[in-house]
């Protein structure tokens, strides 16, 4: 693992000169309509947004603030959405710095963080204490994908256990497109949440296990339907753990190519169906994948794509990431509700997304405010449209 250079981290943290632009900048020219969803959905003290979080981080690291669970609360009350990094005028990445601070301070007790990590390490998922259920969706497919192939569908914990319809849709989509693919027998969790919450060493061990499983499948290409898995496998594993990964591709990237090349054709979804697209932070701000999902949606006949007020690099977060959904579920859902309201303002019938983790939280947000808007993965939208 690349060791965290504490001096380097402190130097980065010192780049924050507390201007406060990371709070709620509304800047029409750059598309920002607020920055920090936590600030907006809490009592709004300085601890809620990045400026305050970094002040606390520095104080903890310098020993000016006692290293207690209470004093680290603010560090975890953040979805690491990275909107602050987008607007930050200084030469550092506040979101990445906070993620590293969590790792450096991982000896401070945090029950939520540690429970998630223990589950992942022992049961290959962050949700339950046994391995049962993660692959149940395969039995409902009507066909049995092999465990070895050139292409692997790495379905992820959320699709497998919380939104199995998405996992099934993804598999059916591949079959309909004539792609031979494998699904692992015992798929390990990508460990994204361990990286985000500071359990880096465990995350590295887990990453090696993931890579080993992928290698055993013989896959040259790994397809993912989760933005979190995508960012973790494509970016974090090589950059943080020096792992050499095969090609990691998201479904929307993969299927856009198939549509563009004419290998698959899509039937109409309906007539003038208004859809808005929610940018998952891990896919958008982290990897710069903004146009592919939109292009794929626009390629569906009968779809009118409308944009939310904040989109692409300035998109507000759904509130699920960075461990926040586990750390403070109510806050996480309130943030999602905010995003749903933003989607409703477009007049869209559907919030499309490309991440089961976002989808799950947006659905919770919609429920919280009794919204009738449909939250749907792009995979779910196109599965029945292949001619």
């Amino acid at each position: 693992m690349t060791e965290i250079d504490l001096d380097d981290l402190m130097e980065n943290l010192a780049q924050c000169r507390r201007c406060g632009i990371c709070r709620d900048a509304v800047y029409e020219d750059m598309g920002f309509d607020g920055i920090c969803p936590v600030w907006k959905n809490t009592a709004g003290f300085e601890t809620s947004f990045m400026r305050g979080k970094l002040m606390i981080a520095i104080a903890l690291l310098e020993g000016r603030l006692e290293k207690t669970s209470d004093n680290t609360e603010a560090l975890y009350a953040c979805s690491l959405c990275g909107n602050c990094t987008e607007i930050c005028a200084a030469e550092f990445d506040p979101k990445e710095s906070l993620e590293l601070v969590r790792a450096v301070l991982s000896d401070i007790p945090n029950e939520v963080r540690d429970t998630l990590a223990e589950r992942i390490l022992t049961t290959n998922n962050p949700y339950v204490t046994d391995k049962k259920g993660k692959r149940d969706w395969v039995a409902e497919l009507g066909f049995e994908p092999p465990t070895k192939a050139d292409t692997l569908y790495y379905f992820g914990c959320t699709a497998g256990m919380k939104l199995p319809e998405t996992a099934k849709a993804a598999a059916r989509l591949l079959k309909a497109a004539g792609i031979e693919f494998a699904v692992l027998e015992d798929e390990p969790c990508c460990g994204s949440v361990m990286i985000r919450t500071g359990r880096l060493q465990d995350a590295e061990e887990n990453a090696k296990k993931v890579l080993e499983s992928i290698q055993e499948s013989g896959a040259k290409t790994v397809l993912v339907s989760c933005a979190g898995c995508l960012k973790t496998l494509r970016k974090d594993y090589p950059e943080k753990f020096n792992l050499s990964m095969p090609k990691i591709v998201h479904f929307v990237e993969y299927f856009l190519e198939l549509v563009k090349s004419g290998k698959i054709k899509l039937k109409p979804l309906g007539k003038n169906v208004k859809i808005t697209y929610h940018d998952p932070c891990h896919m958008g701000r982290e990897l710069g994948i903004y146009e592919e999902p939109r292009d794929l949606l626009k390629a569906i006949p009968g779809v009118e794509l409308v944009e939310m007020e904040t989109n692409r690099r300035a998109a507000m977060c759904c509130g699920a990431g960075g461990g926040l959904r586990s750390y403070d579920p109510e806050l996480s859902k309130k943030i999602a509700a905010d995003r749903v309201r933003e989607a409703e303002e477009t007049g869209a019938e559907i919030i499309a997304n490309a991440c089961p983790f976002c989808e799950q939280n947006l659905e919770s947000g919609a429920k919280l405010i009794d919204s009738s808007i449909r939250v749907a993965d792009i995979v779910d939208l196109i599965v029945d449209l292949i001619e």
Partner: protein
Amino acid sequence: MNTKVVSELVKIVGEEYVSTRVDVLLTYSETASMAKDPVTPGAVARPGSAEEVSQILQLCNKNKILVTPRSGGSSLQGEAIPKPDGLVVDLLRIKGITLHKELRSVTVGSGITFGELDKFLNQHDLWVPVAPESALICSVAGNVAVNGAGPGSSAYGCIAEMVLGVEVVLPNGEIIQTGSEANPNAPGPFLRYAFGPDLTGLFIGSLGSLGIITKVSLKTYKRMHQFHYETYGFDTAEQSEKFLIEVKNNDVLPMFASVYEGPVLNFFMDMVGEEYGIPEHEWPHRTVSMTIGRLREDRMKSDAKKAKEICEQLGGHVIGISELPQGEWEGRFWTFVRTCYIHGWHWRTLYHHQTPTNSHRSVEEITAAMDEHGFLGHTAGFLSGHSTMNMYPHFYFDPLDKEEDHMIRAAHDELAITLYKTGAVPFKLAEYWKGRMEGMEDYMKLLSAIKETLDPNGILNPGVLGGI
């Protein structure tokens, strides 16, 4: 802080909006004022209305609790650094924007930023043409309290010139409305200089020490869409200074006109030139980067022609690099913040005004101080009113280098005295001017008397206004 007082605060604003947590207090111990040492308050309260602010101030008066008002926390001269065990009143929850279209004005709550206001007014093709460089962070009310300036000021002056009235909570808790709105039967904010002396002006630039501004009413203007961007080169400082005077004399409307010394501009270009697509250039001794704005295209073109004539008559030349002023103007809500933080240094500032014809004196003194003490920094200025330059020197330091920090503090103190003697006028009477303004003793005595009258217990941000 006394637990009884905290309980009373909870009764006023609700439990959710009061904190005495050690981590919360730590985050209110500092602001963007990099050169100020942190001071930990005893509590933070986030009121949601002027009435709640009023009750808080009554409570604090009764219990002699020192109060520091704060909104964006972006002030650079220590205006919102709390007092030990004092109360920070965070005003960002007080929202609301009301447009008075027929009155050509708008009223905003103390939690509204310039970014929010600009977005709102843009829907009506209107704007408040003056905004500070921290427009995305600071609240309008906070900026009025420090009397800020920025892009737009070259034509319209500092933010004070936009203000028609304020709602202010006095230290004793009374809520006062100034300007035409003082008459409850008036249709709204349309006249500032109403009912005798300019009480509105008393609170502008008072750094939150005479009252807490909870609402501000400002002038609105039809939004301009015609701009001309140009850079003008001069061989002497005097030429560039004369150019700015003649621009104003000839009714050319510079929305933003900055004057840069060659080396300072080179320094800026090294940092952001490529990022903003500004072509490489051998910048002259002085460059004026100017955005002319007009509602009508013919007037904009006429102004641009006149500016060129003035420049050439004075022996200058049109450089022809429009990207610099265009970047400054179009990106004015973010570009300057970027320039302030991209380089990585912490910095002290010493904001002051000079007349255009005297602005070179600031450059000379600051350059001399940098040479003498051996620190890095820069100064530049922009036209900020009828005949005024807003000078914004930055003195760089590494916060981890205590020796350097000490040296910069000493140089800063020295410079305050030196610059004052050159005729510099601080529009924000920051604490560092205290005792350094020889010949203004009677003025300061009057200011102290006003403070004592309004705030006999001295609870509201004491010491921040030039030490008062």
